């Protein structure tokens, strides 16, 4: 699962793509198999090199990691399946094998974070995935990607270093790096101040990586100017994985051992989440560039996930886990459709895209479906997680009503900005010139529609992700119980 830098050797570019896609599909298949294995509550553990857990390096997959692993490998496989024509257009042939191998490294890094069971390996995998995503973002023809990626590199490295400081402090006090072992040994630690500092460092560092609201400034530019298929891949899973580590660390290690940590965690993250939801949605309403609009809305959607986690309740966590899954589906689909549009339209500002629906009917329809899912219209996947989030907010106490209002207002804002896209595509004909614009190549449209249908499918029959989400919430709350 974590291999295949061999793609670099596959010089003919068709082969490089085929190899990368096959590897991604294989890892997706492994993820599905793992999910089925953990569905009954059995944690799958693999001790690297045969050393038993507290000493050796351990890989562990429980329900929560299985859910995120599905998202990561699914996004990787889906984006790679559709990628070929778009990448052909944006990357020169001789650089393509390198590009695909960087992509696979990124995928391996993200999957590695999810399955790793000790804090330091998470750091190493995090840097593998970050470094390769810097390469991927900077790989496109757009020169504005370079300053964007530089900013991402600086902020990402600071985030990772903060995380490293936190892990170091915990290691100083407990003498272990294994997450489960850490949780057990923290009970014997008498001097809690370093642990508190560590919790702060780790939370801030991961929040930087996850683009939690005031620390999100690197995200819109990096997503806007990267190659279109890379945006699909990263938007669907990169920040989610950082949130996964954040939630896992806080609930598994800190929550049960630090006094009042639950309250501090909630008081720190909840205002940020609320601000993030409102500000990012408002900015997205007035954004004129299609990709930047969607990237900004990602910041708001990440804030939803954080909001769910900050309730510190089982229903809140279930909503978060569910939203990780559903937002990946919706945003992945949206960016796929954008990639299809971009195949013919060079300029993705909204005023240049007028009347695109007449020329690319399938792409536009898929975009609308995924957009509805992002808003949370009943019958789509987005509705399920919004519903869970509102239920959790109501359970969270007297302030619940305000939170529900926040969620509803931001959903209305989402209606506004999705509607602006729909209006441009369907009801305006400002497009200049009469270049015969046809549909994008059929593999791209096919994958886009597959994702769009999944949005509806998981909206109508949400049993599978819901089971996983509930199980992972119960699991995480179990640690702090």
């Amino acid at each position: 699962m974590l291999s295949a830098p061999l793609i670099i050797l596959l010089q003919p570019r068709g082969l490089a793509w085929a190899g990368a896609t096959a590897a991604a599909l294989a890892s997706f298949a492994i993820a599905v198999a793992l999910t089925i294995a953990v569905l009954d509550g059995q944690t799958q553990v693999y001790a690297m090199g045969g050393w038993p857990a507290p000493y050796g390096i351990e890989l562990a997959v429980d329900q929560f990691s299985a859910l995120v692993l599905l998202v990561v490998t699914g996004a990787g496989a889906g984006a790679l399946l559709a990628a070929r024509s778009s990448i052909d257009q944006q990357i020169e042939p001789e650089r393509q094998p390198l590009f695909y191998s960087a992509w696979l490294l990124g995928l391996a890094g993200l999957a590695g974070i999810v399955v790793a069971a000790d804090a330091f390996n998470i750091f190493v995998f995090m840097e593998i995935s970050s470094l390769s995503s810097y390469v991927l973002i900077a790989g496109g023809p757009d020169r504005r990607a370079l300053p964007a990626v530089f900013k991402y590199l600086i902020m990402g490295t600071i985030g990772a270093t903060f995380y490293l400081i936190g892990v170091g402090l915990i290691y100083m006090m407990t003498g272990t790096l294994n997450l489960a072992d850490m949780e057990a040994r923290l009970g014997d630690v008498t001097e809690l101040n370093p642990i508190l500092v560590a919790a702060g460092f780790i939370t801030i560092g991961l929040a930087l990586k996850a683009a939690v609201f005031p620390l999100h400034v690197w995200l819109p530019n990096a997503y806007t100017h990267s190659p279109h298929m890379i945006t699909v891949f990263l938007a669907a899973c990169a920040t989610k994985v950082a949130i996964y580590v954040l939630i896992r660390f806080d609930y598994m290690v800190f929550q049960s051992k630090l006094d009042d940590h639950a309250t501090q965690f909630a008081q720190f993250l909840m205002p940020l989440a609320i601000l993030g939801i409102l500000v990012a949605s408002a900015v997205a309403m007035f954004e004129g560039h299609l990709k930047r609009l969607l990237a900004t809305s990602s910041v708001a959607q990440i804030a939803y996930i954080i909001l769910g986690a900050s309730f510190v309740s089982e229903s809140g966590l279930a909503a978060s886990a569910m939203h990780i899954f559903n937002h990946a589906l919706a945003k992945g689909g949206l960016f796929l459709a954008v990639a299809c549009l971009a195949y013919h339209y060079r300029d993705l500002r909204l005023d240049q895209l007028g009347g695109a629906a007449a020329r690319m009917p399938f792409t536009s329809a898929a975009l609308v479906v995924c957009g509805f899912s992002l808003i949370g219209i009943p019958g789509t996947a987005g509705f399920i997680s919004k519903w869970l989030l509102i239920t959790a907010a109501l359970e969270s106490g007297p302030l619940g009503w305000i939170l529900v209002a926040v969620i509803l207002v931001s959903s209305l804002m989402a209606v506004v900005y999705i509607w602006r896209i729909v209006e441009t595509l369907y009801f305006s004909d400002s497009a200049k010139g009469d270049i015969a614009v046809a549909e994008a190549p059929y593999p791209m449209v096919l994958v886009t529609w597959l994702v769009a249908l999944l949005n509806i499918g998981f909206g109508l029959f949400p049993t599978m992700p819901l089971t996983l989400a509930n199980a992972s919430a119960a699991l995480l709350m179990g640690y702090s119980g």
Partner: protein
Amino acid sequence: MKLLELLGYYNYWVFAITLMIGLYAVISKANLIKKLIGLSIFQSAVFLMYITMDKVEGGTAPIIQAGVEGQIYSNPLPQVLILTAIVVGVSTLALGLAIVVRINERYGTIEEHEILDAD
């Protein structure tokens, strides 16, 4: 006594100060290369923290030899960890510099505000 205690944490003071110097450089410098230098200082500070915490008083290199009993050893694990982190730091720096080279090729400058003006 108080003073001695403070001095006893000498390495940790250096760690904290170096960390802040690095962070300050990253935030305040407009030149991209200087930013990267700051980032490197920032990371090196963390290396120092890890190396400091593995030292055991009176400890020596953790090599088990025949005939030596009751020896106190320093903890080798943080050193191994930080070796990995150094590798990560070097590759980040290399990638950062590569990006700066590309920026210079495409924009003709590595000053942040000039790049912002160019777009």
